[in-house]
C-alpha cells in the first residue's frame, strides 16, 4: 500500500536528477550550489514525510533578485549560461517548495527543459540515455499525478499500482516508435534558426597549413578523432586527401593559392563515401584520394583537387564524396611545369649532387621518378617520430646521415629531389589508413594518421601518387591493419560505432537530408517498372484485403466457444423466427418464450444452466447444443 503523494514525490526527485545531472557539469558554481541544496532539501522533506515546507510566496520573492541579475547577465556573446542557470535554479527552488499538483508538473517540465538545454553544450549520445530515462519516468509520474489530482488521499494497492505503472510503460512503448517516425519528418528550415545559441567551437586540430620538417625533434602524437569515413573496406590503406603544398621556402612547404589551371581526367574505380568530420578550425574538406565531387553547399574547388568548405566545420558535419581510387590522374592539357619545379633558394650540395645523378640516369620523368624511388627503397631509411634531425639542414641530415624521420622528411626530400631533377612534384597533405570498424562499416581516422605524400607529374601519364614513407625499412609494421585488436579495442570500436550512428542519424540530420529523402522516395516510385508497379499494387491490394478480412473475423476467431455458440443460436433463431424481430435486444428466456419452440427452450435451458453459473461448457455439451441448432435450421 502506497499513497500517491509519496509516490509522485519520489518520482519527481528521480526526474529532477535525470534532468539536472547531464546539465550539472556545464553549470557555473553558484547554480550548482543551489541545485545541490535544492535536491538535499527536497530529499530531506521526503524523509520527514513531506512536512517542513518553505512557503511558495517566500520562494518566489527570493527568486526575483536572482532573475533580475541573470537578465542583466544575458548578452549576445553570453546567451546560454544565464538561461540554463535560471532553469536549474527554478528547478531547485520548486524542489524545496510545497509539492502540490501544479508544482509537481512544473518540476517535471523544468527537468525536461534542463535536459534539453544540455544539448546547447554537448551533442554526445549520452543525451539519448538521459532522454530515455526521462521518457520512462515522466509518463509514470504524470499518470500517478492524474490520480493524485482526482483524490489526493488515494492509496494504491500493489495490484492497482502495478496496473497503473504498466499502463505508463505501455504509453512509453507507443511513444518511442512514434518519436522515431516524427523526428525525421519534423519540418526543418534551410537556415539554422537557433545557430547563434550554439557555443563556438574552439578546435585547433586539423590539417596544418604548412609542412616544415626539422622544426621539432619529436613529433607529438594525438589519438583524437579527426573524421570517420563510411565506405567498404579497401584492400590497401586508403589515402585521404585534404590539401596540396606547392610552394617551398627553405624547409617549409606551404600552399600557393594561385594554382595554375589544369583539368583532371579521373581513372580507377569510383567509390562513394560519407565523411563525418569532427568540429575543427580548418576549412579543408577531406575525401578519399581523389574526389571528383563532394556534396557540400558552399564549396571552393581548386584545380589540384583541393576542396574548401566556405562555411567551415564549426560543428560535426557529414557530407558525401565520390572519388576515383586510381593512383594516376591524367590531365587534358599540359600543366604549367615551371610552377611545380621551383626550388628553395639554398639547396644543399648533397641534394643537388643526388638530383643531378638521378637526372642523368633517367631520360624521362618516369625513369627519373623510378630512380628516385629506388634510392629511397635501397637507402635503408627508417620511419620514426623521435630523434628527428633539426635545423636548416635537417633534410640533408635525414637523407645522408641519420636516415630516420617521419613522413614529412620522406615526402619533402623526395619532392625536392624530383624538382631538382626536373620532375614537377608537389606534397599532398591528408591522412593515411584508419581503423576499420566492421560493425559500423567505416574507417575511424585519428589525428595521428595525418600523413604527407608526394604527387609527381610524369609527362604523358599525369600526376602519379608516390609515398616515399612506404619505402622505409619498417614501413610494413606501421600501416598494416592486420593486427587483431584486443578486447578493449574491440569494445571501443563497438562504442564508436554507436556514437557514429548517433551522429549520422541524429546530430547531422538536416533540411537537405530531409529533402533528399523525399526526392529519393519520389524517384523510387517513378522508376518502378510498369509491370513491377502493377504486381506491386496487386500484392499490396491483396495484403490490404487480407488484413481487412482478418480484422472483420477477429471477433469470430478470438472469442470463446460459448460466445460463438450463442452467436450461432441467435443467427439460427433470427432466420427461423423472422417475426421475433431483433433478437439481440431480447433476453435468452424471452426468445425461448416468444418462439414457443421446445428445442429453443431446451437450448436456452442448457446453455443458461451452465453459462449463468459461470461454468464453462464441456465439449460434449457443446456438441449436443450444436446438434440442437442443426435440427432447428
Amino acid at each position, binding site marked *: 500500500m502506497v499513497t500517491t503523494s509519496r509516490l509522485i514525490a519520489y518520482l519527481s526527485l528521480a526526474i529532477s536528477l535525470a534532468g539536472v545531472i547531464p546539465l550539472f557539469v556545464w553549470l557555473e558554481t553558484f547554480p550548482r550550489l543551489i541545485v545541490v541544496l535544492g535536491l538535499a532539501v527536497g530529499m530531506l522533506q521526503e524523509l520527514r514525510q513531506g512536512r517542513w515546507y518553505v512557503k511558495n510566496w517566500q520562494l518566489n520573492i527570493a527568486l526575483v533578485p536572482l532573475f533580475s541579475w541573470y537578465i542583466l547577465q544575458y548578452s549576445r556573446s553570453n546567451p546560454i549560461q544565464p538561461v540554463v542557470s535560471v532553469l536549474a535554479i527554478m528547478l531547485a527552488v520548486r524542489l524545496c517548495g510545497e509539492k502540490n499538483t501544479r508544482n509537481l508538473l512544473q518540476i517535471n517540465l523544468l527537468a525536461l527543459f534542463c535536459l534539453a538545454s544540455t544539448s546547447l553544450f554537448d551533442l554526445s549520445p549520452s543525451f539519448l540515455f538521459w532522454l530515455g530515462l526521462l*521518457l520512462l519516468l*515522466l509518463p509514470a509520474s*504524470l499518470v500517478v*499525478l492524474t490520480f493524485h489530482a*482526482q483524490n489526493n488521499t488515494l492509496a494504491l494497492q500493489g495490484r492497482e499500482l502495478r496496473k497503473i505503472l504498466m499502463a505508463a510503460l505501455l*504509453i512509453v512503448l507507443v511513444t518511442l516508435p*512514434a518519436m522515431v517516425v516524427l*523526428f525525421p519528418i519534423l519540418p526543418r528550415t534551410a537556415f539554422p534558426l537557433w545557430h547563434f*545559441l550554439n557555443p563556438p567551437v574552439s578546435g585547433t586540430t586539423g590539417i596544418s597549413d604548412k609542412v616544415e620538417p626539422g622544426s621539432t625533434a619529436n613529433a607529438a602524437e594525438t589519438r583524437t578523432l579527426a573524421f570517420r569515413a563510411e565506405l567498404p573496406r579497401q584492400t590497401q590503406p586508403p589515402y585521404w586527401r585534404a590539401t596540396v603544398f606547392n610552394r617551398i621556402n627553405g624547409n617549409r612547404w606551404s600552399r600557393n593559392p594561385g594554382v595554375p589551371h589544369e583539368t583532371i581526367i579521373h581513372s580507377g574505380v569510383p567509390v562513394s563515401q560519407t565523411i563525418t568530420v569532427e568540429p575543427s578550425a580548418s576549412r579543408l574538406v577531406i575525401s578519399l584520394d581523389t574526389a571528383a565531387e563532394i556534396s557540400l553547399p558552399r564549396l571552393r574547388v581548386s584545380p589540384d583537387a583541393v576542396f574548401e568548405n566556405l562555411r567551415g566545420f564549426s560543428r560535426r558535419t557529414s557530407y558525401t564524396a565520390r572519388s576515383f581510387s586510381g593512383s594516376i590522374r591524367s590531365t587534358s592539357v599540359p600543366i604549367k611545369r615551371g610552377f611545380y619545379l621551383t626550388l628553395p633558394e639554398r639547396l644543399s650540395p648533397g641534394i643537388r649532387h643526388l638530383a643531378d645523378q638521378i637526372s642523368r640516369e633517367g631520360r624521362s620523368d618516369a625513369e627519373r621518378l623510378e630512380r628516385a624511388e629506388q634510392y629511397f627503397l635501397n637507402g635503408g631509411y627508417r620511419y620514426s617520430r623521435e630523434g628527428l634531425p633539426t635545423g636548416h639542414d635537417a633534410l640533408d641530415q635525414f637523407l645522408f646521415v641519420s636516415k630516420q624521420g617521419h613522413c614529412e622528411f620522406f615526402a619533402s626530400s623526395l619532392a625536392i629531389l624530383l624538382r631538382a631533377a626536373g620532375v614537377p612534384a608537389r606534397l599532398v597533405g591528408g591522412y593515411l589508413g584508419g581503423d576499420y570498424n566492421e560493425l559500423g562499416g567505416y574507417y575511424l581516422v585519428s589525428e595521428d594518421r595525418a600523413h604527407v605524400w608526394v604527387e609527381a607529374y610524369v609527362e604523358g601519364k599525369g600526376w602519379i601518387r608516390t609515398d616515399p614513407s612506404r619505402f622505409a625499412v619498417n614501413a610494413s609494421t606501421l600501416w598494416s591493419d592486420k593486427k587483431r585488436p584486443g578486447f578493449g579495442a574491440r569494445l571501443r570500436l563497438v562504442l564508436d560505432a554507436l556514437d557514429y550512428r548517433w551522429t549520422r542519424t541524429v*546530430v547531422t540530420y538536416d533540411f537537405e537530408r530531409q529533402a533528399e529523402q523525399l526526392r529519393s522516395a519520389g524517384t523510387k516510385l517513378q522508376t518502378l517498372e510498369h509491370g513491377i508497379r502493377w504486381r506491386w499494387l496487386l500484392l499490396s491490394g491483396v495484403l490490404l484485403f487480407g488484413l481487412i478480412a482478418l480484422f472483420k473475423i477477429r471477433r469470430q476467431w478470438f472469442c470463446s466457444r460459448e460466445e460463438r455458440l450463442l452467436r450461432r443460436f441467435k443467427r439460427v433463431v433470427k432466420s427461423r423466427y423472422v417475426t421475433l424481430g431483433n433478437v439481440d435486444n431480447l433476453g435468452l428466456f424471452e426468445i425461448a418464450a416468444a418462439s414457443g419452440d421446445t428445442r429453443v427452450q431446451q437450448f436456452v435451458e442448457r446453455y443458461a444452466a451452465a453459462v449463468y453459473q459461470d461454468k464453462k461448457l464441456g465439449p460434449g455439451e457443446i456438441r449436443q447444443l450444436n446438434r440442437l441448432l442443426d435440427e432447428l435450421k
Partner: protein
Amino acid sequence: MNTGNNLLFLVVSALLAFMAATGYAGMLNIKGVIPELLPPDEIFAGTPARFNLLLRNKKRYIPSFLIRLSVAGNGEALLPFVGSAENLASTMTLTFPERGRQTVGRISVSSPFPVNFFTRYWNYSSDTACIVYPRPLPSADNGAGDDAARPGSSTKEIRGLDGELEGIREYSGAEPLRAIHWKLSARGEELLVKEFGSRSAPPLIIKLESLSGTDIEAKLSHAAWLIKQRAMEQPVGLELDGRIILPASGRRHASLLLTELALYGHH
C-alpha cells in the same frame, strides 16, 4: 550544415509522440466502458435516491482507470480502477426535482487518464425510466375519510386470525380448520375453536381534495406522506377525482398508490 539543434528536435518529437500516445491511451481508456443504472424501488421527488450502478468494461485485456460517471447536473461517481472484462457494481445518488415519469437521460463517461491535460468523455443516452413519487410532506390530516380512525383506537369487534387469542367458543362450521383448538376439543365431545382479535386497523381512504395544502402539488405531497406512513399498518385507499382505489395494505399496494399520485394529471 545542421539546422538548429537536432537534440532539441528529438525532445520535441518525443513530446509530440507522447501527446499522441496519451491521446490514444485516453481514448482506449473510456472505450468499451458501458454504464448501466438500476433505479431503487422508491424514488421521491427532491430526495436523493441511491441508484445501483453497473459498469461493464468490455475490453478483454485493458483495464480502465479513473472513470468518472456523471448524469447531467445530477450525480457523479468516480471509479479509480475497472479491471479488464470486469463488471463493477457501485452506487450513484441522483435527485429528481419533479414527480412523474422520468428518464435518467444522458450519462457521461469521462476520464482525465492518462495525464491530466485533457478530459475525454463519451455520452450514453440512458432510457432507464423511473417513476418519481411526489415529495412526501408531513401532514396533520388523517386522510379526511369519515370512517378513518387512528390505529389502535378501534373497537375490537372485528375478528381476525392474526391478533391476540381472545376467547374460545363452539365450532359453527364457518371457521377455518386451523382455528380449531384440538387439545380442548379432544377433552369434550364438541369441537371448539379459538377466537382471535384482528390486528389490522380500519382502512383509511385518502381523499385528495380534502387534504390540506394550497395547491395540488402540496396535496399530492401530503397524500404521499400518508401512504408512506400508513400503508404497512392499515389498508389505505385513495380517492382521486371521484375515482376510488379500494383500500389494501402492503408494499405493493403502496407503490401502486404512489404511482397514481406520481402520474396524477400527467395522463
